């Protein structure tokens, strides 16, 4: 520790801190623009100049390390002169048009100018004008306002992982821009809006829609992935105008993914269902709540009375709140149905009943940064967990070695030490190889059950899996780590795979001998919470997949669009079509709900109170930011009233808090969670390591901006370059083997369904795979996300015939 003095205050600070850190610690404000605690220090704006004893020049507080005994003056004559002169320089070329600037009212430059500047300018020459750039649908630019602090450039390079903006030119002509006519494509791009201290980078969707001081700020929790990011919902006239991150160092720090930031544009989509609707003679008719609920209750009751509770299937979105999940389960049970599930995109349920607790990510979010060796299995990190990916990036920047086993070779924008890109099916064998190699490396003898040991006997370890094993064991180029901190994580593609059980079991075994932390990276805002509450089939009930395979007479859908949100789109579609009654609690009208019978308008997360449980087991409640739109109601209330109408007992909840209390039985949530989180299996499950399996496999990724009904309706997100129509993407070797070239059209088939898709060259796809994204209208005829698939080339004639048929069929 060092002793220093700032403005006469003596303080103790850590070795290596800068003057600005020290001043921030004791609450002494030093003005700044370029400095940001999460970015490298540029020291270019010079706003933070302070006087330091024994130095004849003022020093930048952001870049000057403190030394023992240093005396710092932030408001001395020389400091103030320096600050005022820098302010004057900053303003000479800056337009003074605050009244029409979107940043007005929340502009650092404006604030600092008021506090540190002098009034009146001595600058009478012409001001610089900089041409604007179009950098995409999310961020709007007004580059004449730029003060060249380079925060945006540094963010995209250091946090986003790819330098997409740069400062070109020199001196006064230097300007921030993307490459020629490119846009900024980072999935974290919105953060540069927050970082820009002036109005040069602002939110395009929000542009000119409100002034900052007209907005009411309400805290909430992000609803599109399982990170649990803290957000602030900005409201005007009962409408969500924008969403910003709320600082939470241990979760989202000060960042937010673009999905969580711009999804709000989907909240008030024209699709919003504002009144209950009933299908009458094949046509939708608006109705009132009472009629709708009585009709729904009547139908559900009739069917369950007649065919028994098993005739009902309940499918719950993992993005719904804990309260909603809890009540849905209670309602299903009340109707004697054990068929309830939230695991809509899973197909392998062999681990049911074998788990010791709720699966989770196995560590705290910030602990990722401290890992030495990491293996990520079956995850396209940036697509699935855009913001979490950044923590991995930091870990790697800190020196961690990252290994990847995946069917997709997409660049996570961080160096990968070792990777194996193979068909999903072969990933199991690869994990087996790693395990086998590990057992040869580890000083500890491997304590595996005989069946697994026998299985491993047949496996041949390849050099690349050997390298992964060595990395996980801590071996290094220069020196070996004795007790490396290892992390093992399974992502969406593993979770959706028919051989998830094998992957999980092997990962667990590898984790066991490396002493690794880790687990699964669940996809949705409340996946972990749903699991903990057991929004899953009873011992005799059916899981999500079974409910579709063996269609039910009636379905209750909570917050889903079945063919877009389920693992097997074609099955989901068929099941809904066949059912006698489908009651959908939904915030949106949707083509995917055409086969429903009753639509009950519920609110999205911004219009209800509720609770999500994140991937690290954090239970976070939030209140409604705005009132429900139209006659829509929070789903927990709808479920309660539906249950009441059904005459079920135990639904006398007055508030979502009461529901939450019931969930945790009055205990402290964290205590319940602590008991529940556990990635271990009760026993080793029968696994098969070596299935040889020919034929193509589909990689049915869910694109990040198609992940749930809200984001699917956010126009700015849909305008990003991530929004491409599903295509049959294959690597060049695969294309050659099928005699295909980019631009061809193919008929892809899964089970009984098919889709006609354009062919696209994608070298990121493993040989033996076709990447066909899901959650899109164009692929609702297809089956399992990670299932078998066939590809047939269509001749131009065939394509034309099919198109004519389709047009005729439509007509």
């Amino acid at each position, binding site marked *: 520790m060092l002793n220093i003095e700032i403005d006469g205050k003596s303080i103790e600070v850590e070795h290596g801190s800068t003057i600005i850190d020290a001043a921030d610690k004791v609450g002494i404000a030093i003005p700044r623009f370029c400095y940001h605690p999460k970015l490298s220090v540029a*020291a270019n704006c010079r*706003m933070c100049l302070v006087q330091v004893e024994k130095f004849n020049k*003022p020093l930048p507080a952001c870049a000057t390390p403190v030394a023992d005994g240093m005396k710092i003056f932030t408001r001395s004559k020389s400091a103030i002169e320096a600050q005022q002169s*820098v302010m004057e320089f900053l303003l000479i070329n800056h337009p003074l048009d605050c009244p029409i600037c979107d940043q007005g009212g929340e502009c650092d430059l404006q604030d600092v100018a008021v506090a540190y500047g002098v009034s009146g300018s001595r600058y009478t*020459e012409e001001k610089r004008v900089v041409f604007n750039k179009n950098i995409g649908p999310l961020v709007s630019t007004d580059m004449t306002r730029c*003060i060249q602090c380079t925060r945006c450039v540094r963010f995209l390079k250091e946090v986003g992982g790819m330098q997409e903006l740069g400062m070109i030119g020199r001196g*006064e002509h230097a300007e921030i821009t993307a490459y020629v006519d490119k846009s900024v494509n980072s999935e974290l791009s919105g953060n540069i809006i927050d970082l820009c201290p002036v109005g040069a980078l602002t939110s395009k969707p929000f542009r000119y829609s409100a002034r900052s001081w007209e907005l009411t700020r309400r805290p909430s929790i992000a609803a599109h992935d399982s990170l649990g990011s803290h957000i602030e919902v900005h409201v005007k006239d009962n409408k969500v105008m924008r969403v910003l991150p709320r600082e939470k160092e241990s979760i989202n720090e000060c960042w937010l993914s673009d999905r969580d930031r711009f999804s709000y544009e989907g909240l008030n989509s024209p699709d919003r269902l504002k009144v209950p609707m009933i299908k009458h003679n094949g046509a939708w008719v608006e109705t009132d709540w009472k009629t709708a609920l009585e009709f729904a209750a009547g139908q559900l009751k009739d069917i369950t009375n007649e065919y028994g509770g098993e005739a009902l299937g309940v499918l719950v979105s993992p993005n719904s709140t804990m309260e909603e999940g809890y009540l849905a389960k209670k309602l299903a049970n009340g109707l004697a149905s054990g068929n309830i599930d939230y695991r809509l995109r899973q197909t392998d349920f062999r681990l049911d009943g074998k788990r010791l607790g709720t699966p989770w990510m196995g560590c705290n979010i910030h602990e990722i940064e401290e890992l030495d060796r990491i293996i990520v299995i079956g995850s396209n990190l940036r697509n699935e967990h855009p913001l979490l990916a950044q923590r991995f990036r930091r870990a790697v920047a800190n020196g961690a070695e990252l290994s990847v086993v995946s069917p997709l070779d997409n660049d996570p924008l961080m160096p990968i030490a070792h990777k194996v890109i193979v068909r999903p099916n072969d990933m199991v064998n690869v994990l087996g190889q790693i395990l086998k190699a590990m057992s040869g490396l580890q000083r500890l003898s491997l304590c595996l059950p005989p069946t697994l040991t026998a299985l491993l006997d047949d496996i041949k370890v390849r050099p690349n899996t050997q390298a992964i094993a060595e990395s996980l064991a801590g071996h290094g180029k220069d020196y070996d780590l004795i007790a490396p901190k290892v992390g093992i994580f399974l992502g969406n593609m593993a979770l959706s795979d028919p051989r998830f059980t094998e992957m999980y079991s092997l990962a667990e075994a590898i984790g066991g001998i490396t002493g690794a932390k880790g687990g699964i990276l669940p996809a949705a805002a409340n996946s972990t919470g749903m699991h903990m509450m057991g929004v899953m089939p009873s011992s005799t009930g059916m899981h999500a997949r079974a409910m579709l395979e063996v269609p039910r007479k009636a379905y209750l859908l909570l917050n889903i669009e079945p063919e877009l949100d389920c693992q097997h789109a074609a099955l989901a579609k068929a099941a809904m079509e066949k059912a006698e009654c489908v009651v959908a609690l939904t915030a949106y009208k949707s083509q995917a709900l055409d086969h429903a019978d009753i639509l009950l308008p519920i609110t999205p997360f911004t219009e209800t109170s509720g609770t999500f449980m994140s991937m690290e087991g954090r239970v976070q409640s939030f209140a409604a930011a705005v009132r429900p739109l139209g006659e829509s109601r929070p789903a927990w209330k709808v479920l309660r009233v539906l249950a009441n109408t059904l005459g079920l007992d135990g639904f006398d909840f007055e508030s979502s808090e009461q529901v939450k209390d019931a969930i945790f039985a009055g205990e402290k949530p964290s205590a319940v969670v602590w008991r529940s989180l556990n990635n271990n299996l009760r026993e080793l499950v029968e696994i098969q390591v070596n299935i040889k399996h020919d034929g193509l496999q589909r990689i049915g990724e869910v694109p990040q901006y198609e992940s749930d009904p809200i984001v699917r309706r956010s126009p700015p997100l849909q305008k990003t370059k991530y929004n491409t129509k599903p295509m049959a993407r294959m690597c060049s070797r695969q294309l050659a083997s099928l005699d295909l070239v980019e631009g061809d059209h193919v008929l892809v088939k899964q089970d009984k369904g098919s889709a006609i898709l354009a062919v696209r060259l994608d070298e990121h796809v493993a040989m033996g795979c076709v990447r066909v994204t899901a959650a899109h209208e164009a692929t609702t005829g297809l089956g399992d996300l990670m299932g078998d698939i066939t590809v047939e080339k269509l001749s131009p004639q065939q394509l034309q015939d099919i198109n004519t048929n389709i047009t005729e069929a439509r007509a």
Partner: protein
Amino acid sequence: MVASSKPVIKTDLAGQTLVTLRTLTEDNPASLDTYLKLGGYAALKRIVTEKVKPTDIITEIKTSGLRGRGGAGFPTGLKWSFMPRYFDGVKYLVCNTDEGEPGTFKDRDIIRYNPHQLIEGMAIAAYTLGARVGYNYIHGEIWQDYEIFEAALHEAKAAGYLGENLFGTSFSFDLYAVHGYGAYICGEETALIESIEGKKGQPRFKPPFPASYGVFGKPTNVNNTESYTSIPWIMQNGGQAFADLGVANSGGTKLFSVSGHVEKPGNYEVKMGMPFTELLALTGGVWKGRQLKAVIPGGPSTAVMPASAILSATMDYDGLSKARSSLGAGSMIVMDDTTCMVKTLHRLSYFFYEESCGQCTPCREGTGWVYRVIDRIVKGQGKMEDLDLLTDISNNIAGRTICALGEAAATPVLSFIKHFRPEFEYYIQHGKSMVDGK
């Protein structure tokens, strides 16, 4: 390639003391043979094969009184002692041949007339500092000279003075030529390092200094071409001999690049402490028999001196600082009595405005502001207050920037206005120059 080219040497060597340009006495100065004939590479060979202790070499350099010839005049021996001795990995050596400061052209003559002495100097430095790899960063505009130097590197390597296991010892040193491409700021050592790394030449904030965080983040020693080129002579003749060539606080010889209104512009290598008048005489004096008006003694980043101040000065660090300017890089720009100081400052202020790298606010905004105000004055739209404004802006730039370009840009404005204020006032009042009436 080099051996066949016989550059015509314009310089009359009388009155000079050749240390860094010692091959100039020969017909074929740049060739390895010439250099060897003059005893070249002997110092390196002795040091490496006799395993002379690096600390002894540093002591010798300290004794020599050699100060950095890049402009700042930092004692070279002291700088070398900052380099971390023990470091896991490659340490780098960088030579700064980016001279882009107007009026500076001495390093060009070293690389085209005496490249091997620079190579030897760098090799000795590499041995002393434990550097494995070196780069000589050469001003982009002198392309033909870059090629001469690169050819010399190949020649040296082929002859066993560069590369692996020199003289059969464990000492290895690779040296490469790299080039700038038109940016004055890359003469600043950290901008130069960024440029070597393939980036824009934007200076880094110091600390950390290159000695701990230089090329590719590794410990790096940066010196000017002339500094390195002095080393072999020092190691051959002893530090004291070098010190004795000069005066107190300024050891050795100095290459003065003399340009502007003299009869014979060019480089003059003379003993430190030579009276200005003597140096001026070597250059044939002010041209066309005109009167001396002013001199910028060390490049535009040093203060301009009216004739009265420079005529009595000696050309060494103390001599010029006593006369309220500085030696800088020894880039002497001579102006005769027909020179309009307003227009001269106009051109200089345009230079700094053009060459500001643009990262820090005072320099980026201030240099443009200064230029626009002077431009206005030159166009006849000046106001009397502008002179105070210019002084003020310049004071607000100086000392508040990341690199010393801030001071460099402020110095001409402050010194021109200080010494030639009436000329500026006349221009503002009459909308035309007091000197040429235009």
